[in-house]
């Protein structure tokens, strides 16, 4: 009973049968099958786009659009990246990438940060009227961008940032705020109020509590917000085309220029390749950010 001497750890866990009951295994399989089926649904258009991008134009004209390419050719990819015409320049989407990056990165960061702070104020530092402000911001999400264009153009002109990247960043930040605020506020209301209390007692002020306590807790929702904002901004065409000028056009405008020819020859393979290329940064963001969907950030914070 009182044997305190250390017994060697059991010969690993191998002795435990790995198998589980039949029902469990079946359920697990079913789960993977369902997930797989949905993956097919989501992948179908990508499949079409990929195969098309690898076909020659000749094959597209004559062949079955959904079939696999008879012979692979990567010409379309090269063309899309560096040769396709987007106007009189025929340098593909490459030159426009940088504009988009310059635009999307600051806009995403600023709007996420502002949204996080707004959400934090509204959720954890309630003051009378905070909910009304929140509701007003939310409702702002619904303003159709088409009606925004013209007055916004005028405002940007007045502010002297028309046609510049800062101007575009400004626009994206303004119209992204509603969403980022929404995400963060709705995430923060579920965090126990005791944490703020403890930090207040520890002497931390508003800003400190936010950066030291809330921001580290918000990783999953930051991921969501970044995914959303990055996608919205990177893929935005309407603002990009309206508030840019030669030299500041984002990649979507280039993509659109490649894809949308009304009276020219349509090169579907290049279109598809260009679209996939244009989406790569976003996909990268999904993959990188996705890693941070961690479980249990609040574990151990409070009882009950």
């Amino acid at each position: 009973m009182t044997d305190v001497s250390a017994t060697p750890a059991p010969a690993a866990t191998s002795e435990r049968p790995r198998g589980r009951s039949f029902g469990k295994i079946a359920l697990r399989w079913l789960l993977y099958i369902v997930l797989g089926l949905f993956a097919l649904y989501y992948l179908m258009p990508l499949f079409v786009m990929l195969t098309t991008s690898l076909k020659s134009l000749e094959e597209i004209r004559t062949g079955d659009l959904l079939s696999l390419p008879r012979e692979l050719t990567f010409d379309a990819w090269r063309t899309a990246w560096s040769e396709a015409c987007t106007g009189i320049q025929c340098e593909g989407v490459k030159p426009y990438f940088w504009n988009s990056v310059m635009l999307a990165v600051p806009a995403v960061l600023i709007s996420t940060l502002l949204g996080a702070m707004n959400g934090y104020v509204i959720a954890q530092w309630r003051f009378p009227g905070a909910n009304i402000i929140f509701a007003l911001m939310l409702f702002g999400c619904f303003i159709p961008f088409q009606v925004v264009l013209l007055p916004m153009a005028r405002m940007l002109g007045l502010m002297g940032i028309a046609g510049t990247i800062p101007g575009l960043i400004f626009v994206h930040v303004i119209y992204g705020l509603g969403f980022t605020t929404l995400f963060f506020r709705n995430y923060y209301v579920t965090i126990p109020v005791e944490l703020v209390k403890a930090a207040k007692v520890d002497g931390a002020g508003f800003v400190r509590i936010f950066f030291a306590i809330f921001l580290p807790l918000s990783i999953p929702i930051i991921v969501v917000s970044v995914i959303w904002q990055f996608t919205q901004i990177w893929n935005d065409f309407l603002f990009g085309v309206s508030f840019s000028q030669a030299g500041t056009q984002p990649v979507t405008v280039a993509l659109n220029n490649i894809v949308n020819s009304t009276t020219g020859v349509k090169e579907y393979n290049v279109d598809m390749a260009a679209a996939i290329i244009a989406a790569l940064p976003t996909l990268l963001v999904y993959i990188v950010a996705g890693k941070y969907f961690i479980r249990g950030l609040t574990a151990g914070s409070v009882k009950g």
Partner: protein
Amino acid sequence: EPQAEVLHWWTSGGEAKAVGVLQEEFAENGGSWTDMPVAGGGGDAAMTALRARVLSGNAPTAVQLKGPAIQEWYEEGVLADISSVADAEGWADILPASIAGHMKCEDTWCAAPVNVHRVDWIWANADVLESNGIEMPTTWDEFNAAAEKLQEAGVIPLAHGGQAWQDATVFETVVLGLGGPEFFQKALVDLDPEALTSDTMKASFDQMRTLRGYVDDNFSGRDWNLATAMVMNGEAAFQIMGDWAKGEFLAAGKVPGEDFLCASTPGDGYLYNVDSFAMFNVDGDDKKAGQDLLAKLIVGPNFQKVFNMNKGSIPVRTDVALDEFDMCAQKSSEDMTAASDSGALLPSYAHGMALRGAQAGAITDVVTAHFNSDMSSDEAVQMLADAVANSM
């Protein structure tokens, strides 16, 4: 140093190369060209951008504009006057009168024309016609007869893409064919209510209904070039489409007259779709100089020739030699001269040459609604009149 920022929607392949010619010439003449291409929706996106630019007080130097839109922008007071160039170059003499009319705002010149697309073309697969013993139709009745025959033979008579503008394109050729140039002018240019509800208009809708029967079931939303591909493949016999369709045939290595045939749609007249650049009010002498230079070069014979060979259209100038152009282009040019003389040179409503956007749109709504439902021609005519009235 002349400067020009040019907003246009010629972005892909041949189009872009064609504009590239202009840019080169511009540069050779000491100008610096800033390219601002915005494709999409037949220029809708570019127009969106244009509006924003104008409102933010930052208008581009030259903008690809056409038809009544030029006058509309002029009415907003934002267009520049390029009469000095036009007079010096004698545009009045070398341009067909009806086309020149589009370039003028009240009494001044405010835009420079680039090319003429003919809209009322019918394209055919030579082999299919031959094997079924069919000639190119010259009336709609002939067309219908040929179509019946083709249908029996298991060929789709008409390759068509179910998009509103394609429906409108077919519709206007039908109206032109059945009603003749005068009727077309009254109905689709002057929007005469009587003409809109006339029996001829009903007949046009009837013909549309008939054509609907010659189109395969899967036409909805099909891009025009896929329809062209159907003709190329022999899946379908005919396509009614502007002369840009030629580009697809040529790109696929098809030879006009041998592999594919071009003819004007049944009936008289010539529907043009003229691209042009309008000059906007800008500050700065260099930009003004750029505008003038640009206007001069655009209408200049060299650009007209090179550009249009690339683009598949024909020059606006009547004095450019067409030896190097293909047979379809040559036919187009001949027809244009003839039509210009007979007063049958008409603006295409479907391509924004005839009407303000709101009105053209209202008509297209009715045409496409009719084509895609089982609406009767009487109803359609009534709707048409209402829609046009509502769009004023």
